[in-house]
């Protein structure tokens, strides 16, 4: 964990409720895809955890959904705004897990952390397939960017307006996509359905209401097959076999 001041370089909507924010500054605290940052916001007591979409030297990309006061404040931030940010929180995905054909499954605002993961897996020579689930066409974002990275992309929409009609699990079944491991981030019901539908091992990024975000308050504890774990510190990424649904 590092505490740094980052400056908003860009903050634009991708869909009516999804925003992409670019921040510049020292992001060397971020070491793995699937980690998150915590942003202090004026007038709010607790920091807001936001997953890392992508990072490189001096630059961090966050893609977030406006769901409450904190993210609403973020969506109004102008370029040049300075933010107090804790970086490098959480364990992140195991990008070196031995597999050839990883399947990445994202649902809605769970899609962003898979972007950096796709980059890292493709850089390791893996054959990456990505299934992205959204409610409807107007909520789709980043699909073409995953393609641009060289991933095979399958889109599912609940209303069938684009791609396969149904949930990500329907898209996996109907597309017949081949995989030998999976990584996923999205709403809990999706992760649960995915873990029961998949035959291989995999890992899922969980979400839980947090207090501190760095492992001291026990606000976000879950019970796993390996005992009590903190989503913020021991997670947010857990092995499929660990999670008790």
């Amino acid at each position: 964990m590092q505490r740094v001041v980052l400056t908003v370089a860009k903050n634009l909507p991708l869909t009516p409720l999804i925003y992409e924010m670019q921040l510049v500054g020292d992001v060397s605290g971020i070491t793995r895809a699937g980690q998150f940052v915590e942003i202090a916001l004026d007038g709010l007591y607790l920091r807001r955890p936001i997953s890392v979409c992508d990072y490189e030297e001096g630059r961090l990309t966050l893609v977030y959904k406006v769901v409450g006061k904190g993210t609403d404040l973020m969506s109004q931030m102008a370029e040049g705004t300075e933010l107090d940010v804790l970086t490098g929180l959480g364990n992140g995905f195991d990008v070196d897990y031995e597999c050839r054909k990883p399947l990445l499954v994202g649902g809605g605002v769970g899609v962003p952390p898979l972007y950096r993961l796709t980059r890292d897996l493709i850089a390791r020579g893996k054959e990456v397939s990505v299934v992205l689930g959204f409610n409807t066409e107007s909520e789709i974002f980043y699909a073409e960017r995953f393609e641009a990275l060289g991933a095979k992309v399958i889109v599912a929409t609940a209303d069938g307006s684009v791609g396969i009609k149904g949930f990500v699990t329907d898209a996996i079944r109907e597309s017949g996509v081949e995989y030998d491991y999976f990584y996923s981030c999205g709403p809990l019901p999706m992760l649960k359905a995915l873990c029961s539908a998949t035959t291989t091992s995999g890992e899922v990024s969980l979400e839980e209401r947090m207090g501190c975000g760095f492992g001291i308050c026990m606000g976000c504890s879950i019970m796993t097959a390996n005992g009590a774990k903190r989503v913020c510190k021991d997670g947010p990424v857990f092995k499929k076999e660990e999670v008790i649904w």
Partner: protein
Amino acid sequence: MVRDLSVELCGVALDNPVIPASGTFGFGKEMSEVYDINILGSISFKGTTRDARFGNPTPRIAECPSGLINSVGLQNPGVDAVIAHELPELRKIFRKPIIANISGFSIEEYVECCSKLDKEEQVAILEVNISCPNVHNGGMAFGTSPESAAAVTRAVKAVTTKPVFIKLSPNVTDIVAIAKACEEAGADGITLINTMLGMRIDIARRKPVIANKMGGFSGAAIFPIAVRMVYQVAHAVKIPVIGCGGVATAEDVVEMMMAGATAVQVGAENLRNPYACKEIIEELPFVMERLGIEKLSDIIGIIE
């Protein structure tokens, strides 16, 4: 001029009065990766019970104006695991005296935990949290009546050799009566205040924000209440008081001490700023200089 930050709690010398409050610092491990925690006066470690506890269902946290509500439910690995695993780890990263925070749901549980932790060399003070419900008395918290608070105090004192501080709940009608009952029962000091009982409702979902409906409200919002209660109690008892509740700055530490606290705990602020205790300790000499304070212990309880 060199500013003297040292204080003394029942013969336990602290380099400074700043102590992270129980439940906001774990057993020090995570924070020791952030800064050298040996700058702290002491550490009050995560509330420990006889048996391992997972705690309450999630969500356990609710944001509030200038604070938060938590309903963690005393998640901890149990006293034997704390002694076997957590304390040896804590010893490696913290060389100062520590405060063992103990919770229980029966007098027997308090007695068992306190007598075990009393034997641990690095434990200098036992801090007994009496805000827990008494399972043998309809779930009423020990800390809500002078009689039950005194009963816990007496039972714990009978099996321990180290100073016992009773940590009081503010959710009572007469905190002074409870503090006095603890003092008369043999308490060596008082820590106050624990969290205030609070509740938030998600008006869109029409449900309480916290799974357990209610929880403990802490943070800067409760600071004035904590100062008031510390003032009332410190002037009513002869034993030392550790002030706690909403402390966020070096100025707050000074204010709490002027109200009557000998040492001060920092709680919720650690959750929003992991460097809170470090920054407060580094700022204290400058605040003392500005206020003309040479020796911090000189201001303890100066408000008549």
